[in-house]
């Protein structure tokens, strides 16, 4: 097995990465600068690159009770949401692949239809239903509503990844005689783990940043972090320091999550199961 390639293989890759990283991070770095600048140093003309940094914006944001609340709310909501979407989608994707489902094509198209509806259109009809059912302003209620976006995407994703699996494995699994649950757990999940992880990451990010549904279906208990960041926009005054600091802080859980989750987007996972 060839494990090492010549430099010619790697150098272009690192070069492209470098350029991509520069483009990607420059705007974020600028926002970070604003968050550590005093009011006299930010929004100047010409823009200042050298200044004395302050951490007041960060201490202010961390001490802000509303921000803290929304931070933890979002952690909970996103956690529920990811689990719901991935678990339900795995079973659905497996069912669509493995079994003859009569309405398969319609179902897949209905998924897209649900996905393409604008968020704010849901708010009105679901508002009264949610109030009646007691789901209004709850973490679980929000995580449930988010499925209208996360489920279609997850099912499509996981189904695509399942389609990629070579036919030999499918046949082997069939002959194996395990129960569907065991088949899914032992064979398919390991094989499509990168796909599952990518799905979880993308769902998590989307939910973490969602605003429209959150405005409509929460009132005070389940306010997500997007509102916590928005609070720094006052009336005839704007706390740029607070807004930028809270935006940077909001990135941190996502970064952690992505770093940890990524360990599973690694080449070579398929080889293990083929041999085993």
């Amino acid at each position, binding site marked *: 097995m060839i494990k090492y390639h010549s430099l010619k293989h790697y150098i272009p890759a690192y070069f492209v990465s470098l350029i991509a990283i520069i483009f990607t991070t420059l705007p974020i770095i*600028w926002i970070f600068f604003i968050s550590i600048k005093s009011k006299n140093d930010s929004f100047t003309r010409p823009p200042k690159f050298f200044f004395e940094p302050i951490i007041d914006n960060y201490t202010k944001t961390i001490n802000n009770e509303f921000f803290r609340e929304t931070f933890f709310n979002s952690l909970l909501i996103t956690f529920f949401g990811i689990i719901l979407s991935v678990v*339900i989608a795995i*079973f659905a994707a497996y069912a669509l692949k493995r079994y*003859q489902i009569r309405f398969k094509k319609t179902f897949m*198209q209905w998924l897209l239809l649900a996905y393409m509806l*604008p968020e704010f*259109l849901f708010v009105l009809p679901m508002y009264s239903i949610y109030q009646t059912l007691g789901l209004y302003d709850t973490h679980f209620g929000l995580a449930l509503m988010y499925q209208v976006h996360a489920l279609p995407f997850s099912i499509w994703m996981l189904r695509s990844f399942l389609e*990629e699996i070579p036919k030999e494995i499918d046949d082997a699994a069939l002959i194996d005689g395990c129960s569907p649950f065991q088949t899914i757990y032992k064979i398919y999940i390991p094989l499509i783990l990168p796909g599952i*992880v990518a799905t979880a990451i993308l769902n998590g990010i989307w939910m973490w940043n969602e605003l429209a549904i959150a405005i409509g279906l929460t009132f005070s208990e389940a306010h997500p972090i997007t509102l916590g960041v928005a609070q720094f926009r006052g009336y005839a005054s704007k706390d740029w320091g607070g807004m930028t600091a809270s*935006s940077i802080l909001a990135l941190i859980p996502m970064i952690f999550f992505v770093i940890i989750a990524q360990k599973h987007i690694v080449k070579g996972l398929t080889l293990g199961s083929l041999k085993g």
Partner: protein
Amino acid sequence: MKNNIGYYFLIPSILLLAFTSIYPLFYSFINSFYNWNWGEQRDYVGLENYIFLLTNEEFWVVIKNTFLFASFACFFEVTLGIILALYIDRIKVGSTIIRTILLIPLMVSGIIVSMMSKVIFNNLFGVIPFYLKKIGLKSSFFGSPDAAMPTLIGVDVWWQTAFVFIIILAGLQSIPQEPIESARIEGATEWQITRFIRLPMIRSLVLLVIIFRSIDTLKIFDLVWGITGGGPGISTEVVQTYSYRLAFGFLQMSKSMTVMILFSSVVISLTFIYSLIEKRNND
């Protein structure tokens, strides 16, 4: 008997989707035939809303803007995302850090991306116009009707390319390596391997990102509303901002829902085309 298990596995998703999507869809559809103004007025008007929109010049400009935005943004995002994924696929050392950094734009919420763009492209205190002026170029990114849309597209590309990137990367990392190894032994170049082995293997994923990015870009709201508000003039007004304005700004709820029904019909026909392509792929 065997098939029934399949149906059982689908039940949770069907229930959830029915709960969250059927009622709103139905609700919007019914309301599009009234003239509801989110208050006391709610009379049946038949197809009046549809006729009004379809004969309204502004509506067609909005449709044009939306498709313009979607096609360019989608094209760049898919292309760049795939290229990026192909290169990062090779990297082992430091790949976690690199991938995480490249994903950061996606982690930023729409409101913050809007705020960021306004700050960076602002003629007075923005970094970019300042340095452009230094090399003699005058600019007016979001203030000019001609430059606003391309700049918005650029912002979306910065923001969402990572979406394509992570999916294609996951796909590349989960394809079996034997065919690639054997091709290498036989002396195939990297490009040949990519063209004849890798890309075909992730074909359905590429189609998937195209579908989802198309829908997402057609649905764009946060960026446009946050940065330009549809302006200058209506050069950047898209379907969602138009619909939102009708609903929450002018309180013309029914018209707003009619826009969405019309728009959804267009997008559904697109998905028909996609599924035809997919069918051809699989045969």
